[in-house]
Each structure stands twice: as C-alpha cells, then as structure tokens.
C-alpha cells in the first residue's frame, strides 16, 4: 500500500498530489520557570517527515520523547515554534488566523489518548458528532442525524440509533474511543493524528480498535500518524515507522525493516523491549537499558542518545549525526553507519 517516497526530506516545495503532509524542521520549545529562572525546553528539534495519501506512519518513542508534542503541534493545539508544515501542497502559517485554523482542521483531525476526558460528559453522542458536521458544513441540518448514525455504524457502534442519545457515562471505554474516532472522521479529513489511541483501553480491546483504524484508513484512503510507545503495536498498524527520541528523529523506514533489522542503538533497545515471544529477552540474557531520557533544557550538541548508548564514541559528541541512507527508504541518524 506504500507508495514510493522520495529519499530525502529536503527539497523544493512540492505540489505532488500523493503527498498529504510534509514537515520540515518542525520545532517546538516551551518556556518554563518564573522570571529570572526562565529556561527553554526543546521538546521537538527539527523533525522532518513526509506522508503519502493512504499511508500509515507509526511514530514511536518513550514518555518525554516529544511524540505527543508532535501531534499537538501538528494539530495546532500548541503552535509549533519553528519549521514548516505543508498540507496537501499548501504551506501553513505557524501563527494561523482562526480562518486558517478552520480550513486546516477540516483536513487534519486528531484522536485523543484518553477516551474518558475527550468527551464532554454533558453532551450526548449525537451532540458531540454533530459539532464537526455543522462547523465544517459536511451535512445540512436536516441530515445531521442520519450522518451521525452513519458515522457510528462505520465505527462499529450498531445499531446506531441506540447510541445517538447516550451520554459518555453510558458507554464503555472502547465505545467512547469509537465515538472519538467517529468524531475525527466526521470532518472528512485527509490526515488523522492518533495520539496513543489504545493506551488507556483494556488490552483485550486494543487490537479491535487498531483493526478498526486500519479498516477505516484503507476504506477512505486516509493518512494516519499512529503515535505509540509500543514498537510491536506500531509494526502492526504502520507502513513506515519513525523513531523519536528527545525531540529528534533517529531512524525512519519501512515497518518491517525497523522491526526486524533495526540500525540505531535506540531502536535496537526498543526492539529488545518489545514484548514479542519470537524475539526479545531470553532468560539469563541482559540488555543494558539503564538511564533516563535526557533533560530537554540542557541538550548537548551531539546525538541525544549518547548518555545511554552502549556504543557511544567520540564522534557522537560534536554535532548531531547526519542522515545515512540504508536503501529502501530506510534512514538512520547514527555515526556507526558512516
């Protein structure tokens, strides 16, 4: 399903219709602390990404890696502080007017992590779903109810008429997340950002929700950015996987390549930690996974993974390693492969 991707993220502006999203050097920093002790937290540092129409990209990283920041920056919930966002060939201003935002959000939607917090407890399912239908003028008022019912059926909440007038407290966690997915679909976006959509759900229904996302994505030629901390889960849903660490992309490539032949030491660490009966730890084997994610206020100029990297060397320190092409769209940012 993956269409060929141009090798380098750099390059001139494109109007390639297959390209849904292009992100260049996306950065986001926050200012923290009180006056006099202000410090900048660099949560995202120059992230480059391209996404084809109908492609699923898994964005994998641990807590604090910046993966949620990335989703929120792309959704303009926290506007990015640097870089470029091109959506379907059009560059988005980083300080968008309400009009810009409205147009952008009719193409980019988000599924939230916590299905309990993302639905207003005072609004029925119908009211929640009719919001995007009305504000993006998807369905005329007379057909809103039918359109909502259709959305509910498409996310597997049947019979839809049973669910339309329910309040969130009358739904299970999985059902709530289905409503959240239906809300994201309602705007008929080209791109959906799914921010750990299954992490708050029972293990037994995670796979159901992932399959639902895949079915919807394939049926509608949707592009999907699936954000997760779980490499195995990302491998299950994604065409390509990108590894994020301390706000830097470290490796990106076809899902199977990252899963079965990871290059970056950090990806190898994630691979070892992935709960997979065929790989991972053997009894008695130890893999050094010590260390914590770095303090994002005092990032050294070199590779951010150096303090935890078992293969760190002098060349890692002076500057961020350049991207190495490994063939087949697989790229890694590590000096080991010079």
């Amino acid at each position, binding site marked *: 399903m993956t269409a060929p991707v141009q090798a380098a993220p750099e390059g001139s502006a494109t109007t390639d219709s297959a390209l849904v999203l292009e992100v260049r050097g996306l950065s986001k920093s926050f200012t923290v602390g009180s006056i006099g002790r202000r410090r900048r937290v660099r949560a995202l540092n120059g992230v480059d990404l391209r996404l084809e129409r109908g492609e699923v990209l898994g964005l994998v990283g641990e807590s604090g890696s910046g993966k949620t920041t990335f989703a929120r920056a792309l959704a303009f919930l926290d506007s990015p502080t640097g870089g470029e966002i091109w959506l379907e060939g059009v560059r988005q201003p980083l300080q968008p007017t309400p009009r810009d935002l409205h147009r952008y959000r009719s193409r980019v939607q988000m599924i939230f992590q916590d299905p309990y917090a*993302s639905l207003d407890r005072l609004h029925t399912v119908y009211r929640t779903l009719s919001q995007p239908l009305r504000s993006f003028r998807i369905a005329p008022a007379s057909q809103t109810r039918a359109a909502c019912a259709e959305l509910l059926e498409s996310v597997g909440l049947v019979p839809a008429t049973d669910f339309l007038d329910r309040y969130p407290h009358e739904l299970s966690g999985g059902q709530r997340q289905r409503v959240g997915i239906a809300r994201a679909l309602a705007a008929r976006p080209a791109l959906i950002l799914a921010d750990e959509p299954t992490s708050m759900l029972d293990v037994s229904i995670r796979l159901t929700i992932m399959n639902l996302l895949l079915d919807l994505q394939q049926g509608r030629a949707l592009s999907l950015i699936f954000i997760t901390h779980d490499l195995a889960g990302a491998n299950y849903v994604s065409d390509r996987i990108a590894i994020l660490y301390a706000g830097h992309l470290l490796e990106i490539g076809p899902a199977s390549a990252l899963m079965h032949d990871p290059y970056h030491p950090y990806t190898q660490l994630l691979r070892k930690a992935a709960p997979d009966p065929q790989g991972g730890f053997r009894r008695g084997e130890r893999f050094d996974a010590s260390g914590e994610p770095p303090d994002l206020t005092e990032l050294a100029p070199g590779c951010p993974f150096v303090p935890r990297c078992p293969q760190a060397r002098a060349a890692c320190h002076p500057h961020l390693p350049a991207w190495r092409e490994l063939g087949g769209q697989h790229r890694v940012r590590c000096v080991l492969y010079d």
Partner: protein
Amino acid sequence: MTLRAFLTNRRAMAGAGILVFFALLAGLAPLIAPYSPTNINFPPMLGPSAAHLLGTTANGQDVLSQLIWGSRDTLIVGLVTATLISGIQLIVGIFGGYVGGWIDEVLSMLTNIFLVMPGLPLMIIVAAYVTVKGTVPIIFVITVTGWAWGARVLRSQTLTLRSQAFVEAAQLSGESRWRIVLTHIVPNMAGILVANFFGAALYAVLSEAGLEFLGLGNVNTVTWGTMLYWAENDEALLMGLWQWMVLPGVCIALLGTAFGLLNFAVDEVVNPRLRRT
C-alpha cells in the same frame, strides 16, 4: 441524578424551606400583614398584645407588619445583587481565564485589588459618597465590592476546563471560541455558578443589613436593616421592646442561613468528594 442528590440533601431542603417561607411572606405581604408598615397612628412602645402581636415601635408602628413587609426589600436586594454579582463574576472570570494574555492580566489585577480591600470599610466609604439613599445604591455598593472572590474561583475553573481534552477536541471540531465557552465551559461549571449565586446572596443580605443598621441606607424605607437601625436609635432594649430589636436580626440570620445552606448543599452535590453517605 444531580437533581435527585439535591432533593435528598437535608441542607438543601432546609435552606429551600426557609427561602420559600420568606418568599411567601414577601409575596403575600399585603394579605398577611395586619396593618400598613408605615402607619404611625398606633400607641407607641406597646408590648405584645392581641391587636399588635409583636407590639409597636417607638414611633407607633406595628412591628409584625414591618417584619413581614421588610422581607420584601431584603429578598429583592439579596436576589438582585446576587444576580448582578454572578453576572460580573461570569464575565470577568470566564473571559479572563479563557482568553488569557494581557486581558487576563488586567482582569486578574483588578480582581486582586478588590480582593485585598476589606469589604465592609470599602462599602461604607462607597456608600458615604453615594448621595441618593435607597435600595438601588445599596445594590450598587454591594455589587461593586462583592464580585471579586467568585470571579477568581471561576477564572481558575475556566483555566482547568480550558485544557481538558474535550475542550481541545471541540476546538478541533471547528467550534468557535464563544460556542466552546457557552456549550462546554459554562455548563460544566453550572454547579459552581449556582453555589456562587447563593454565596453572593448571603453576602448581599448580611451587607445590606450592616449598611442599613449603620444608617447608610434610606432610613425611611421598611427593611430588617432599617428596623434594627431605629430599634437601636430609640433604645428598644432599654424600653423592654426586645421583640422589636431581636426579631429583625433573627430574620436576617435565618435568611442568611438559608442561602448559606443552599450554597453548601450545591457545593456538596457537584463536588462528590464533599458528599457524606
């Protein structure tokens, strides 16, 4: 569910009961009161008797009639002031909290200034400068001095709600700011708004009584506060006219209790951590 919790709450029912009693008294005053409250043609300083159940004042007015008619003004001041205060709190608190930026800074500073100024002295000063005496200036003075605390509560609530995922989801759904405020933020604060309303009513009733007792209202109107003023002025207790002095105070305390109970009860219903089994 919430309504049921409210209806089975003993404080809520006690508060509502007292409030309804005074509301009936105020509404039916012309029918219930035995005489006109301003009629001064009775023998002054009478003790309780069949003709004057609570006696008469030093000016020869019927105390019972004054007490019944006085509930009108007190209730009106309480409810009107609470409405005005709630309106200001809603606008200042929610607007500042939701819009943020320099508008929030200015509104917060204003709120803090009114918060640090002690209420009653400020009220006395403002009332002293208001040359027209009567109900309207009293409402004005209490409103101006009484909105800050609740505005601050609503602002912090707005800040909390604004960062909730369902509000962000509504933004992504293309909702305008004002629709989000009206359909998500205000409804989710409804309980606090109601509790604040009763809190403001309590504050208004007590402040009105305080101002009028000090003679800063129009002493010729008949309210519980002015009854206290005259009873004090005419040395009711020295004359043995205890019912003239004590009963207006009891009424003020009862009405204040009613508003206070309702405030606590609503708080308890909307904040389950305060609910007792």
